[in-house]
């Protein structure tokens, strides 16, 4: 458990950080950012929570066995977008085929958003997974501890 001031600060910041992550995720077409940054920001919100309130509390919200599934699902969403465009007779990840009649390249927009969601999910789950793997271990006794 962290210090009281840290815990209050984390409680205030937790929701805005997640909101900012989604802003970065879906605003990547228009400004700096995208799935990778959004995934890291989303994971950092939960890591901040785990640092302040303990790993067990955070693992109640996001159980550790969800994360490998989320990692794989993110990659599958990305690959699935590519397979989808191939099924409609175009190249792998050639998004124009999603909306071929659109005159403002709606297919490109849909494809980019789908792919970025895959990246965001994979990155967020991977970052949280690595943190869980580190923080879930108890420290080994040092040589000078004996």
């Amino acid at each position: 458990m962290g210090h009281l001031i840290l815990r209050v600060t984390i409680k205030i910041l937790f929701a805005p950080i997640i909101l900012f992550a989604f802003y970065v995720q879906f605003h990547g077409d228009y400004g700096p950012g995208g799935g990778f940054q959004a995934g890291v920001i989303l994971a950092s919100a939960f890591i901040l929570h785990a640092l302040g309130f303990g790993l067990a509390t955070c693992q109640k919200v996001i159980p550790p066995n969800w994360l490998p599934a989320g990692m794989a699902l993110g990659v599958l969403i990305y690959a699935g977008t590519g397979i989808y465009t191939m099924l409609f007779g175009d190249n792998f990840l050639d998004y124009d085929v999603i909306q071929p009649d659109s005159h403002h390249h709606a297919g490109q927009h849909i494809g980019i958003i789908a792919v970025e969601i895959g990246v965001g999910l994979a990155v967020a789950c991977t970052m949280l997974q690595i943190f869980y793997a580190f923080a879930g271990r108890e420290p080994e006794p040092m040589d000078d501890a004996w």
Partner: protein
Amino acid sequence: MMLAAAASAEVGSEVTPSTPEVVGFTGAFAVELCLLALLAATAVAMIRMRRLFGVAMLSGIYSLLSAAFFVALDAVDVAFTEAAVGAGMSTVLLLSGIALTAKVEMPVSRTRTIAPLIIVGVTAAALVYATIDMPGFGDANAPANAYVGRAYIEQTPSDIEVPNVVTAVLASYRGFDTFGETVVVFTAGLACLLLLGAGAIRGGGRNDDGEH
């Protein structure tokens, strides 16, 4: 430590000569100079510090300063990633790694630091020598800006129609590369899972590996 020194040498030497067009002492140039001086000072402090907590904090500060420098170079997307990953995520991972190990770095004898110092010095000299041939910062005829880079900038408004060209290149033109990067991130998470034990999946706790 030496890795950090090499990285700082790399960053410092690669970007310093790339702004030769700055005529006179403008405000932007002063900001860049301050950021580079702070980067160098942080790197030196990291090398000299023995307490690992302080080193981890300084590495976060180093990443934040380089993110600020990327903003000064108009590379906003790179700066964003550096701030999120370098200053945020890797600092936390370093700290949770330090929690599992010793808190203070073992003292190293002077004679053992000579060989790494020579390697870092030679690498830095080679990098500085390489930057002499580099095109000027923002040079329109530089290879990075001339061929396919120019084509992306010219064709994104008609091909993709998204305002951020970086996103268009990353997710559409070079979508297959980004797919590879996503798989790399996935593989990194998988490797951590395999190396640090599945105890984290089963709800944390100690993983004895059958030793006891």
